[in-house]
């Protein structure tokens, strides 16, 4: 019955008055919301944690995210929703709404998942969808909805900085909010200074509000931004601290249009203990009225909480009352709230509306998960100040921007602050593969602190890793200390480099579907692995590593041959050593004891005027050494990786312009010749010798 009566009042009142029960005017809410968004961590969260590169500048469906936020601040006042924007901090929350029961307390409304449509949980759901929905369009639309929802949530906080909304006052006609809107419209510099707040008193809530006990009626801690339940009606001093709900601060320290000095009102819905007549002193101020400066007397708040501002005008009959000592209970003095009072209010309330709004936005994104490692072994850590109890799931985007959960990559855990889940492994998705391998969205859903169903998102990079194991093709023993690289076939970028360990293993980051393995120095020629034990000299011929190439330990074993070049050398008949030698200048000397102190001495000198290697397949010729070279290059330097697949085959010819001198003599132990030399022959010859691929 009572609710119907008041609804009737409001309906009739709405027909005759231009403003009934509105909160801050729509443009004011919008601007406070924009400033709160600017002051919050939203932009950083979007860019750094979620990988939204343009942050708040991101445009979704034609509007920037700041506009979606502002739109929420605007639209929360839509038809009849405003009835749920009141909270009397001195009432039980179930009866703290407008006039007790006309509307729901703004705290409950903000968490009413049944009726609001934009409750905290609705916004959480939208955020979860923004992180996980398959299509990009759906994700973006959900993100826009989440931001609009946040705008609506901060609207409720801002209303707690409007005295009428905390003092059960439908506040028809000209009021605090309309004055603030007028100043916003016509004295922007004053409004801007309110938004900025005073450096001495910025009105920023003590972060401890997040840890206060939750109320089952509205378990999400944001309720405490509005009402901490620390101001109980008899302790206004507590409202000057930073650990106080905004509605408590506003209720205890300010009047609304129809709730002025109502500490003794017989109606409990109108009765508020503070401020009261003991909270004020009187003081004259100069004010400008219609261009003239006049004195006006004000009640100045001097005790019982916040102090030092004009609380109300002193009624015109104040002197009359004092002079004749009239009975207060039978005399209405009619103090009022004028522009100067409203400006003093706004100077204190608007910065708090901004700061508390920013606090709510930051709270929404407070969850922090930090991931490190690679997919062979990674961990994630709860970087938040609160325990997280729920499921962590990895998602990835395929080449069509479809977001998909990574198969097998969901972990349900309870993590204390700084708690970690360690030594996890992951198989990089291949069907379909990731658009950007290694890039994932890690999404937590579950209880976080007092919030029963929180959502945390974090873009993480978990590099896919493989183990390249190089073994000798001939006997299967490991190649130790061999360099191996993973190369992106699309960009040519070296993704990772490593040296094989004692077992021939090297861990390499890779991109599934676009990586080839490069072995630069096991042989004298560079080799791209081409599958099995074959190799290519070009990246195009390399095999793109497939998941099927890897075993359960993400290991690919590559039998790599040690390739030799082989060609026949003739033996000189007299000295019985090589006729020519593959060195530019060299001497060979051998002495064989024959007994009776005689020595069979052989001395051979070699000269290479020019040695070239000519490949049979393409005719390319390469000089290996000449008379000016200090050493000859091994013919394998002219080999290519494909030659590793041609063991036993002739791949080219040596063209040698050689000379040598072969000398053989019997000497005594002191080197003195005994008799004539056996031979002393000079050779000079140009020869062509086939070169065969051999394997060590």
């Amino acid at each position, binding site marked *: *019955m*009572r609710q119907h*009566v008041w*609804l*009737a*009042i*409001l*309906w*009739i*009142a*709405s*027909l*005759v*008055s*231009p*403003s*009934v*029960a*509105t909160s801050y*005017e*729509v*443009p004011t809410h*919008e*601007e406070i919301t*924009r*400033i709160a*968004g*600017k002051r919050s961590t939203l932009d950083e969260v979007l860019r750094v944690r979620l990988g939204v590169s*343009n942050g*708040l*500048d991101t*445009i979704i*469906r*034609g*509007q*920037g995210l*700041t*506009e979606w936020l*502002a*739109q929420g601040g*605007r639209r929360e*006042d*839509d*038809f*009849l929703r*405003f009835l749920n924007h009141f909270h009397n901090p001195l009432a039980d929350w179930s009866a703290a709404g407008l006039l007790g029961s006309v509307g729901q307390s703004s705290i409950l409304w903000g968490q009413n998942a049944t009726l609001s449509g934009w409750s905290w949980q609705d916004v959480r759901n939208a955020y979860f969808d923004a992180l996980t929905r398959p299509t990009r369009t759906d994700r973006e639309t959900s993100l826009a909805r989440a931001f609009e929802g946040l705008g609506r949530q901060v609207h409720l906080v801002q209303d707690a900085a409007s005295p009428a909304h905390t003092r059960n006052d439908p506040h*028809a*006609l*000209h009021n605090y909010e309309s004055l603030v*809107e*007028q100043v916003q*419209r*016509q*004295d*922007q*510099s*004053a409004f801007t200074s309110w938004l900025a707040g005073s450096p001495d008193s910025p009105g920023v809530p003590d972060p401890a509000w997040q840890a206060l006990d939750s109320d089952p009626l509205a378990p999400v801690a944001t309720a405490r931004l509005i009402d901490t339940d620390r101001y109980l009606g008899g302790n206004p001093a507590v409202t000057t601290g930073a650990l106080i709900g905004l509605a408590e601060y506003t209720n205890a320290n300010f009047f609304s249009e129809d709730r002025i000095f109502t500490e003794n009102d017989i109606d409990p819905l109108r009765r508020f203990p503070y401020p009261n007549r003991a909270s004020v002193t009187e003081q004259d101020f100069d004010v400008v*009225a*219609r261009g003239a400066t006049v004195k006006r007397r004000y009640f100045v708040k001097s005790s019982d909480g916040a102090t030092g501002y004009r609380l109300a005008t002193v009624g015109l009959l104040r002197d009359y009352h004092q002079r004749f000592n009239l009975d207060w209970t039978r005399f209405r003095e009619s103090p009022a709230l004028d*522009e100067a009072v409203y400006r003093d209010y706004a100077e204190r309330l608007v910065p708090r509306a901004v700061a508390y709004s920013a606090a709510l936005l930051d709270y929404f994104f407070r969850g922090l998960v930090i991931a490190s490692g690679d997919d062979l072994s990674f961990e994630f850590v709860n970087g938040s100040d609160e325990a997280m109890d729920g499921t962590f799931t990895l998602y990835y985007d395929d080449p069509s921007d479809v977001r998909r959960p990574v198969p097998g990559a969901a972990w349900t855990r309870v993590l204390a602050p700084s708690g970690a889940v360690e030594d996890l492994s992951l198989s990089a998705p291949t069907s379909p593969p990731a658009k950007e391998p290694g890039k994932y969205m890690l999404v937590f859903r579950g209880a976080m602190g007092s919030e029963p169903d929180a959502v945390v998102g974090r873009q993480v990079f978990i590099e896919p890793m493989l183990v390249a194991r190089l073994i000798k093709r001939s006997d299967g023993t490991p190649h130790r200390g061999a360099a191996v690289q993973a190369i992106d076939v699309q960009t040519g970028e070296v993704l990772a480099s490593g040296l094989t360990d004692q077992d021939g293993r090297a861990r390499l980051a890779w991109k599934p579907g676009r990586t080839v393995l490069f072995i630069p120095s096991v042989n004298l020629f560079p080799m791209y692995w081409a599958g099995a034990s074959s190799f290519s000299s070009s990246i195009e011929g390399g095999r793109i590593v497939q998941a099927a190439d890897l075993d359960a330990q993400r290991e690919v074993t590559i039998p790599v041959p040690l390739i030799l070049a082989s060609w026949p050398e003739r033996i000189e008949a007299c000295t019985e050593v090589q006729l020519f030698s593959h060195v530019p200048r060299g001497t060979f000397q051998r002495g064989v004891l024959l007994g009776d102190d005689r020595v069979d001495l052989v001395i051979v000198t070699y000269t290479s005027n020019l040695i070239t290697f000519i490949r049979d397949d393409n005719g390319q010729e390469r000089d290996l050494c000449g008379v000016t070279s200090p050493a000859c290059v091994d013919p394998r330097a002219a080999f290519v990786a494909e030659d590793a697949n041609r063991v036993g085959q002739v791949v080219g010819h040596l063209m040698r312009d050689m000379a040598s001198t072969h000398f053989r003599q019997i000497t005594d132990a002191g080197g003195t010749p005994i008799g004539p030399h056996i031979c002393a022959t000079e050779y000079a010859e140009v020869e062509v010798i086939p070169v065969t691929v051999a394997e060590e």
Partner: protein
Amino acid sequence: MTAWVRVVALCSLLVMSGTLAAWPQDTQTWDRYLDRPRGPYQGQVVDAETKAPLAGAVVVALWRRNRVYPFHSVSENYAVRETVTDTEGRFLLDAKDVEEGAPRRTYHPEFLIFQPGYGSYPRKYVSPKGFTGGIFERPGTIVELPRLGDREERRKHLWLFGPHSYSDKPFRDLPELMRRINTERVAIGLEPYSPE
């Protein structure tokens, strides 16, 4: 007192206050609503440092109205107009058609002045300070806009206002504003707006 007596009493009070008092605290200075056409609106826009006129700055005028519904009143956009400053940085915005047909409780227009690379009026400007109600109703008002600094300052400045606050269809209603906002966005490496 019974509840119905309180209803009648309160309604009577509201009727009296609504009809007789008629915004008793609204002075001439702070009147909210148009009592008559106030345009054309005029002014000059200059660089705050050099005092050089800013040609090509867009000037947007937005008229909101206070619409009363059962239980509620809301501020709604009623009309919006834009113009561009000339080579002297001056603008003249004729709003006769808007204001002569304006419904009751139409507010005085709000203005937005924007030039890429500069702070905007009224979000980030240098002068005039203080009370700005009606300043464009009379000649001689000069608005000084400060040149903005680095990219970060410019992008955060764009957060302070949005075209959709002025129109649901800004590309249709405010093409000059959209052109300049997009010029600014592109200049600082952001994706431009495109029509829905």
